[in-house]
């Protein structure tokens, strides 16, 4: 036997550089638009310039006559396919038929009307301009509250009230709580529409092999397997004749947790023309036609006692759904209701959701998906209650937190919080920020006439989606770990990471379990022909659920490794660690590579054991996980201009056990940046006629690197018992925590002027008007 070296260094918990990054930062990664195929054709889509209109006629002749154009398809050509699927179900939900191309009406600006197929993308785009559509414009409605008014234009004529669904949830005795309250505070809070703005827009390549009768769709998606199931249904194609590949995906933030008309349409086109087809979304299309996030108008009422005890919460939630249901559209506000109690102990809640159709692009999951809205609401209401009774915002939180000994904690909305130490996270944040001293500085600043604010947000979130009974499409995740004959390790994960870094974190888990080097591990994902099945990456689930599947696959594999090791060492008493199988009696050992080679050579199989070293595990989580934390933001508002400056940003996050602190910090940074975007800059504005007037990056402000302050990160670590790794998830935490911390801070800054609430985004003009017009907007 060769000399074997036992590897003792462990990698979980270490700051390991990302395996993904070299290809991403050297421009050598393969995105959808990098795919080239012989005979490839290109599609361009004609989209409605009207928010609501009847289509009187479409003349495609001039486009077809354009040299290089191969085909033009309109709504009547695609009647046999579709609809665009909605995966959410709620009692009484009205689901408009969502055709792949508009039929006799258009419902929002950007609604696809026709697709042109041509030899190259320039010809395709030119030909789009040659299609003549005779529209009869109709009145449109873009504001969800106006859509509820009597006499408002009906988005879908069959439902003149524009209501897609209502949803009620109640627990405890809300009326009694409000009757007994010493203080009731009411506030209307808007969580504005946001445009997810992934760096890579969407794109689809579809390739039909007529001989094999099989279709391959390459799409910039977060959910290749679900897409295969749903697109196969929409195309009437057997699922085993469709392969979906998510190549490198340049960000999604939930906007690619969807099945769009274009994926179905390009599959259809490829089968029609018998050539590979490519469609790449422009940034303008991305703004108009890829889902938006948020879109809430929330009416909150909080009841409390003068000692700071919260007694109950009421919420009327108006959700702007847009014109259609995309994959999860109507389900998103129900997540807000689930998380409405936050991390506080009160038991009396009542929530009513009204889902409203508008002539706008649909809303759906965007980083946080329902939880930022809930956290923003409860964190604003707690601050307002504190202000009303003259209590410090930290103190009122300490008073109402669920306590460490109360876990698992059953919430009034039916969740079971796994673990938490909410007071611990806030204490740490106060300590890092130097809270007492900050309050002293604030006193001084106020004496000098400066508008300095300190804002706290303490959040809890629901992550690691999730147990299958509580999710629309299954909440498990799959992993296959294969030790190749040479001892190299291949991991197949059903989670479809797209920038989060699981190629690194999963490799870390493998390294610790099998004693191999990072360079020996390749993590593959995003291809339905490679990975057995999977759910995808969203809802901060990939590591907590997908990583756990990898862990369990490794445990089964290790048993098999030991069996082969025992056979090679001719002993029943062996152990495996650090990449080496050792006979406990003789001390003789064999390496993993030797075992792997023997397992495939299969000259001598252990009794009852198959050849090879492959293990697949589908892990079903018993519960969600519930990360938490506390963010503190110090701001100063320029009295003359209303401009907000973030002076300090302290983020304390507890995401359970940490596999790679560098990646966790990166997730917090990115999350906070997007939270700052909502708090200070971003707003998708539709005018009253349904035109998206923030239609490009020249008007829609996302935070640039220079606009993000230094973020002081710190962590507490409270493992979850939900999975053996103790990990909870961190992808959305920064976004969820950030916006209420910023708004609480700015409201605190302006509170001497009588300001008690400000809706996002906190634009300078809005604040200037508050400052100069006596605290009233």
């Amino acid at each position, binding site marked *: 036997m060769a000399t074997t070296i036992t590897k003792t260094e462990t990698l979980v918990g270490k700051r390991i550089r990302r395996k993904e990054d070299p290809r991403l930062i050297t421009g050598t990664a393969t995105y959808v638009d990098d795919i080239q195929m012989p005979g490839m054709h290109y599609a361009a889509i004609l989209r409605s310039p009207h928010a609501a209109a009847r289509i009187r006629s479409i003349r495609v002749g001039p486009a077809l006559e354009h040299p290089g154009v191969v085909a033009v398809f309109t709504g009547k050509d695609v009647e046999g396919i579709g609809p665009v699927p909605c995966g959410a179900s709620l009692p009484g939900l009205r689901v408009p038929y969502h055709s792949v191309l508009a039929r006799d009406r258009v419902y929002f600006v950007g609604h696809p009307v026709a697709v042109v197929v041509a030899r190259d993308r320039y010809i395709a785009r030119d030909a789009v*301009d040659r299609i003549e559509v005779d529209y009869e414009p109709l009145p449109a409605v873009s504001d969800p509250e106006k859509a509820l008014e009597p006499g408002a234009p009906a988005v879908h004529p069959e439902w003149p009230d524009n209501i897609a669904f209502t949803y009620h949830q109640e627990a405890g005795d809300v009326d009694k709580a409000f009757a007994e309250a010493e203080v009731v505070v009411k506030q209307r809070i808007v969580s504005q529409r946001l445009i997810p703005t992934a760096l890579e827009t969407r794109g689809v390549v579809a390739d039909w092999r007529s001989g094999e009768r099989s279709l391959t769709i390459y799409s910039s998606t977060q959910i290749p397997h679900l897409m295969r199931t749903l697109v196969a249904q929409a195309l009437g194609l057997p699922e085993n004749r469709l392969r979906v590949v998510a190549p490198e995906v340049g960000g999604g933030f939930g906007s690619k947790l969807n099945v769009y008309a274009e994926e179905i349409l390009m599959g259809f086109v490829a089968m029609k023309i018998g050539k590979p087809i490519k469609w790449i979304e422009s940034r303008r299309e991305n703004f108009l036609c890829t889902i938006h996030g948020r879109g809430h108008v929330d009416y909150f009422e909080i009841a409390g006692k003068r000692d700071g005890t919260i007694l109950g919460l009421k919420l009327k939630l108006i959700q702007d759904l847009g014109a259609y249901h995309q994959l999860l559209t109507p389900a998103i506000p129900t997540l807000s209701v689930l998380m409405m109690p936050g991390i506080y102990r009160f038991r009396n809640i009542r929530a009513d959701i009204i889902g409203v159709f508008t002539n706008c692009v649909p809303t759906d999951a965007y980083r946080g998906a329902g939880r930022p809205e809930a956290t923003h609401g409860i964190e604003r209401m707690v601050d307002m209650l504190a202000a009303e009774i003259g209590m410090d915002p930290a103190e009122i939180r300490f008073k109402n937190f669920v306590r460490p000994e109360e876990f698992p904690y059953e919430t009034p909305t039916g969740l079971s919080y796994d673990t938490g130490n909410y007071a611990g996270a806030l204490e740490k944040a106060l300590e890092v920020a130097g809270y007492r001293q900050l309050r002293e500085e604030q006193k001084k600043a106020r004496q000098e006439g400066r508008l300095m604010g300190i804002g706290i947000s303490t959040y809890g979130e629901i992550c690691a989606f999730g147990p299958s009974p509580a999710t629309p499409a299954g909440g498990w995740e799959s992993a296959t770990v294969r030790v190749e004959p040479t001892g190299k390790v291949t991991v197949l994960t059903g989670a479809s990471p797209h920038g989060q870094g699981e190629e690194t974190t999963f490799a870390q888990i493998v390294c610790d379990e099998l004693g191999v080097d990072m360079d020996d591990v390749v993590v593959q994902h995003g291809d339905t022909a490679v990975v057995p099945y999977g759910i995808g990456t969203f809802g901060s689930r990939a590591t907590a659920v997908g990583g756990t599947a990898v862990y369990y696959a490794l445990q089964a594999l290790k048993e098999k490794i030991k069996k082969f090791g025992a056979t090679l060492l001719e002993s029943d008493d062996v152990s495996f660690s650090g990449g080496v199988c050792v006979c406990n009696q003789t001390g003789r050992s064999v390496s993993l590579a030797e075992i792997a080679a023997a397992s495939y050579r299969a000259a001598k199989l252990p009794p009852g054991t198959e050849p090879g070293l492959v293990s697949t595990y589908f892990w079903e989580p018993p519960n969600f996980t519930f990360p938490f934390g506390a963010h503190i933001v110090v701001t100063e508002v320029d009295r003359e201009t209303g401009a907000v400056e973030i002076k300090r940003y302290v983020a304390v996050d507890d995401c359970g056990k940490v596999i790679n602190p560098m990646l966790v910090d990166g997730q917090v940074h990115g999350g906070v940046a997007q939270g700052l975007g909502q708090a200070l800059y971003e707003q998708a504005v539709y005018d009253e006629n349904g035109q998206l007037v923030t239609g490009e990056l020249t008007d829609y402000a996302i935070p640039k690197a220079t606009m993000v302050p230094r973020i002081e990160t710190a962590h507490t670590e409270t493992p979850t018992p939900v999975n053996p790794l103790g990990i909870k998830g961190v992808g959305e935490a920064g976004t969820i925590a950030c916006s209420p911390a910023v708004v609480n801070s700015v409201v605190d800054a302006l509170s001497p002027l009588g300001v008690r609430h400000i809706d996002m985004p906190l634009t300078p003009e809005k604040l200037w008007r508050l400052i100069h017009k006596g605290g009233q907007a």
Partner: protein
Amino acid sequence: MRISGAYTLPADPERAYTLLQDPEALAASMPGCRELVRTAEDEYEMKMNLVISSIQGLFAGKIRVADKEFPARFRLIVEGDGKIGFMKGEGVLTLSPVDGATEVRYDGEVQVGGMIAGVGQRLLDATAKYLIKRFFEKMREWACHE
């Protein structure tokens, strides 16, 4: 978008009123107007090639005059449609004599759609004012020359 303002034309209200509804004067004054055809009483169709710096767009449009009260006021309804977007405007023009000339006040609503609405909002206000100014300047020239 609400637009309002006032310009002075060197003519008495009667003549200014007639000029502002005269197809020839309108064709000469509408920015980028290439063709203006009367299609019915008080209704015209027009083709425009609007050029503002690098931006250029062909529009097909309609002009309609309504609620006529000679020589004090009338309503002007303008619609234009092109590949880069569409616009619909409706406003009341009020004419009053000022020192031998006529002050024309306009007050209306303009709705803009398509690409120009989606990417041009930063400049719509200034551009609309510019186009109106060009219209009245041309109309003033016309009034002087005729």
